[in-house]
């Protein structure tokens, strides 16, 4: 039995905001199936009582000094924007998507 179906890959693509074609879904379903089957071997390590590590360093709550510093100007911040209007990022509509 395969670890992941084409329908599941289509769902992952939606969650990942990737508009994939039918051919791509077939291709990724085969490859992801092989990868997931391999990485499932992490289960071989008996680690029930072991705490998880999200990070290699034992650091918590690192703050920098609360000082006023120079930040980007609006021109700098908008310089790489795909579309700009009135000193703001112009974006496609985000509301009424259900309509």
């Amino acid at each position, binding site marked *: 039995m395969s670890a*992941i179906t084409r329908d*599941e*890959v289509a769902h*992952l*693509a*939606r*969650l*990942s*905001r*990737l*508009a*994939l074609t039918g051919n*791509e879904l077939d291709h*990724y379903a085969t*490859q*992801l199936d*092989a*990868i*997931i089957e*391999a*990485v*499932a*071997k*992490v*289960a*071989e*390590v008996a*680690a029930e009582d*072991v*705490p*998880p*590590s*999200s*990070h*290699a*360093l034992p*650091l918590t709550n*690192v703050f*920098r*000094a609360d000082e006023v510093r120079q930040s*980007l100007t609006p021109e*700098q*911040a908008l*310089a*790489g*924007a*795909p*579309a700009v209007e009135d000193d703001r*990022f112009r*974006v*496609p*509509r*985000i509301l009424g*998507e259900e309509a």
Partner: protein
Amino acid sequence: MSLIRKTAAELASMIAAGEVSSVEVAEAHLDRMAEVEPKVKAFLHVDRETTIEQAQAVDTRLRAGEKLGPLAGVPIAHKDIFTTRDMPTTAASKILEGWRPPYDATVTKRLREAGLVILGKTNLDEFAMGSSTENSAFHPTRNPWDLTKVPGGSSGGSSAAVAAYEAPLSTGTDTGGSIRQPASVTGIVGMKPTYGGSSRYGLIAFASSLDTPGPFARNVLDAALLQEAFSGHDPMDSTSIDAPVPSVVEAARNADVAGMRIGVLKEFGGEGFQPGVLARYNETVQLLESLGAKVVEVSCPSFTVALYAYYLVAPSECSSNLARFDAMRYGLRAGDDGTRSAEEVMALTRAAGFGPEVKRRIMLGTYALSSGYYDAYYGQAQKVRTVISREFEAAYQQVDVLVSPTTPTTAFAIGERVDDPMAMYLADLCTIPSNLAGNAAISVPCGLAEEDGLPVGLQIMAPVLADDRCYRVGAAVEQALESRWGGPLLKEAPSL
């Protein structure tokens, strides 16, 4: 000897003594690039004028008596994943094609302050995801030893540039082996510093708990000088270590392994390893013993599953990090015809802007983080990460450093593994454990494999903040082998 064959330390002292100007050194390298780039294709962006301007500025500062660092005036190739204000920064992705960052990465800033002259931005696997540089959206880079082979990856442009004498130094980033593996397969030195020892500010994120900037050079001392130039605490990176570190430059000059305890990892060396790689590796271990080191066999049983834990941890972090490419504030926007919603534009842009490996990893990470799968995949991988760190700690109770081959095979052919992701991932088998534990590790050349005449690398691993041990052992190996070979390994490379 021509300027391009000199070490970075030699060039720096010639520039400091006024024997040659930084502009002359930069020009010699730009000329070399013009000659060999059509074959090697190490760079994504080269701008002669900007480079000469930087060199002129350094010459002016030096003439004015300004005290600059020990690499002042030396040219460097910079991986195109560090932001640079005066050059485009793409991470080798179509989604960032043509982007000009509004700020310099900390590593970039420190290179400039130290008087290093940036020759251009080097090619990489898109967003540093890959082991061959074939995942660049723009073009593959070729291995200077054999133009039909890969230069390793993800920092393959940086390794190729140094191996092809286009630059004496380059920068890289190592998330699962992306500095050490390319260094190994191109016959040069590449170091992954302790995680947190070098700043990630302005480094385009792939897997934030693993990404580590580090140096490439043609010898151990040059690599140490470069690491020292850009490392150290950075308040702009909350995972930057604020602690004193032993001098790596001193260690690179020390080169004494007498009495050091060296652990040979039992898990790396059997099936799947090329015989020619193992032959050079075993000889080098014997060499260390003859230099007075005490060699013992060490076992870290979970290292064999480190690869699998990595391919859950890194894609999970990548799926989260790369969510920032949303077609709204910078980078590519595709399909915005006035009728489509932001969400539709986002999905079309990401489909058009990301290459196949990036899409694969984003979906794999999304899967591993999904409810219902989280505990079995990401959660278990995080526990394995703890187990691996503990096995390292136990090993370092017995030994000062651990060694292994850097990669199971020498450079593979371009195209050979592109359609088989798992085969590609195996290139990082030996390098991944040090990333999961945040430890330091270096790759130094240790000879050519008999069957194909291609370079083999020795990996030397050390505990957190013991980067100096990597350099000390690396320098000892380099010194002993170069006296045997009558010069650096790279002199065996065919002329381009």
